[in-house]
């Protein structure tokens, strides 16, 4: 099993799918000649040419719509939106066209597009380049939302997303492209639904997704020294959320803390809490808690930025509070 970077895993998935099927194309800003801001399409332009590796104008809504229209005729576009902040502009086509076309055509048309975009707060990029938009996408019927926390997931989720007949939004992270991890040498398809037990434990469940899985893992190690044995659940599917997996873990540990990079309101944490409430309220030994970002546009100043976004230390503090330590 090779150890490769997150971006290399995404690139490999592109390459394999494009080599297999001439109707798989990729498109986005600077993805061709430049090879992608995060190198996710590096070398593909030379290999597959400008008709299949398309450098688009800076017109997020319409080039996304173009990919969606092409998908009606059987093309399988992998659309890169350079930053999730720019995906706000494309939400018209993603929500109104891709997510709804199967339903409003009574199943006649499907939009098998993949839209990849990195979100999250990197380093001092300011309010308009630091959005965390997962909460917006996960509330839309007809759209699948997945978010890889490792190179293996980044590879396997993209492979499955390209082959799936539903529109899939893949929420990546700007700080994770250089993360290393093991990826199977053989072709691998990651499920688009479900969740993973990243660490088994018995005293409490930490729910994370994407970068926050790593904060949860660091916190779990720290808490193990205090004698608190945490389970970490990786919610790689944000829509539909894995109700059964959430119920199973909380029924075992009887405590839950949800860790999210985004602001608390109307987010992953509030949704997971609602599911716990609906599925296994009487299993709880304590009220679930959230570790979320401050409700502010992301500040430029690095002290303020750091104070906005959660980290492993805040997860540890929250868990200790729950145990009265």
């Amino acid at each position, binding site marked *: 099993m090779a150890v490769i970077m997150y971006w290399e895993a995404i690139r490999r998935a592109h390459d394999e799918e494009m080599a297999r099927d*001439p*109707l798989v*194309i990729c498109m986005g800003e600077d993805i061709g000649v430049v090879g992608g801001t995060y190198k996710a399409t590096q070398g593909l332009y030379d290999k597959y040419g400008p*008709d*299949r590796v398309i450098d*688009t*104008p800076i*017109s997020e*809504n*319409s*080039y*996304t*719509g*173009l*990919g*969606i*229209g*092409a*998908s*009606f*005729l*059987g*093309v399988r576009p992998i659309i890169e939106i350079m930053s999730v902040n720019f995906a706000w502009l494309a939400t*018209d*086509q993603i929500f*109104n*066209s891709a997510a709804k*076309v*199967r*339903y*409003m*055509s*009574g*199943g*006649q*048309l*499907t939009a098998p597009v993949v839209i990849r975009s990195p979100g999250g707060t990197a380093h001092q990029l300011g309010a308009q380049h630091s959005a965390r938009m997962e909460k917006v996408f996960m509330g839309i*019927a*007809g759209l*699948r939302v997945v978010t890889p926390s490792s190179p293996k997931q980044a590879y*396997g989720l993209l*492979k*499955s*997303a390209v*082959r*799936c*007949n*539903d529109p899939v939004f893949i929420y990546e992270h700007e700080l994770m492209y250089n993360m290393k991890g093991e990826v199977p040498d053989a072709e691998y*398809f*990651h*499920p*688009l*639904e479900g969740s993973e037990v990243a660490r088994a434990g018995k005293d409490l469940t930490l729910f994370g997704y994407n970068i926050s899985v790593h904060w949860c893992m660091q916190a779990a190690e720290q808490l193990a020294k205090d004698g608190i044995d945490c389970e970490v659940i990786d919610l790689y599917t944000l829509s539909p959320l894995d109700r059964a997996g959430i119920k199973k873990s909380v029924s075992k540990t009887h405590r839950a803390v949800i860790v999210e990079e985004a602001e608390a309101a109307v987010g992953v944490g509030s949704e997971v809490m609602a599911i716990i409430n609906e599925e296994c309220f009487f299993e709880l030994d304590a009220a679930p808690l959230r570790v979320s970002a401050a409700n502010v546009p992301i500040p430029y100043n690095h002290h303020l930025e750091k104070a906005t976004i959660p980290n492993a230390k805040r997860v540890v503090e929250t868990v200790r509070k729950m145990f009265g330590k």
Partner: protein
Amino acid sequence: MNAADKKRLLREMLFARRFEERCYEAYVERKIGGFLHLYPGEEACAFGVLDAARPGHDYVITGYRDHIHAIKCGADPKEVMAELFGKETGSSKGRGGSMHIFDAKHHFMGGYALVGGPFPLAVGMAKAIKLKGGDEISICFLGDAANNQGTFHESMNMAALWELPVLFVCENNLYGIGTRIDRSTAVIDQYKRVHGYNIPSAQVDGQDIEKVHEAAKIAIEHVRGGKGPYFLELMTYRYRGHSMSDSNAYRAKEEERMWGKRDPIIILRDRLIEAGEISMDDYKLMDDEVLEEIENEVIKFAEESPEPKVEELEKYVLGENDPYVRGGAR
């Protein structure tokens, strides 16, 4: 266009007119709900362009005033009416409604209700056609007001940049909902707006189907010939309000009278009578036949069709049993 074609198109346009008028009645009877945007007055646009194209073969997309485009592409009028009645037998199984008629097997790729939304979808279909090497073209019908959306400019740019086989048909009915074009739009002649993208264009009388057909032939030859996109502006007028909830109080009576005299069906009918191809009695007989077909076949089918089952409410949101959702077929 020969006399037989003209007679056929006269009947097709008359059918479209009576179909839409019957929709109006059904709406008043509360058989049709929601929003209803009707096409009377604009018939020569859809029929003139699509008769010059290859309906059922070329891919067609439009906005929410979509019943007639679907029918001309080959959709069964009974299924379109059943859709308006919200029935399971409707073209979109009662899930779409008036603004979302689809008939994928006849390459009618839908009615969309966000103004300007279909522009990029149409360009995307053209991209797919080019990639697959087919001889179809993509045809996008939208109104003049859609040209004030960002998608218009973004899509024109990409269509021209990549020389994609797409024909944009602008049905310029002079109003965006209730606002007259000169109050919303800096450049009144819409065909001029694509010059900035090096897209060839023309403006013709949208009430005269022969003129529309002739202009469409030139446009389609250009697009199908691999020369890239074309933009055709058709000057037309809708005889009813924007939708059924529109009081239509914003238009001058004199303007309505003037355009009323330029009815595309009457223009073609009178031309055929003058040429001795049909008589007024022939026309009346044709009208009676059309009305009878609509009542006895189309409305009857819609009335008698079953409602969708509530148990199937969530069907069609996502695909069913997609193996890759579980990580591939193992």
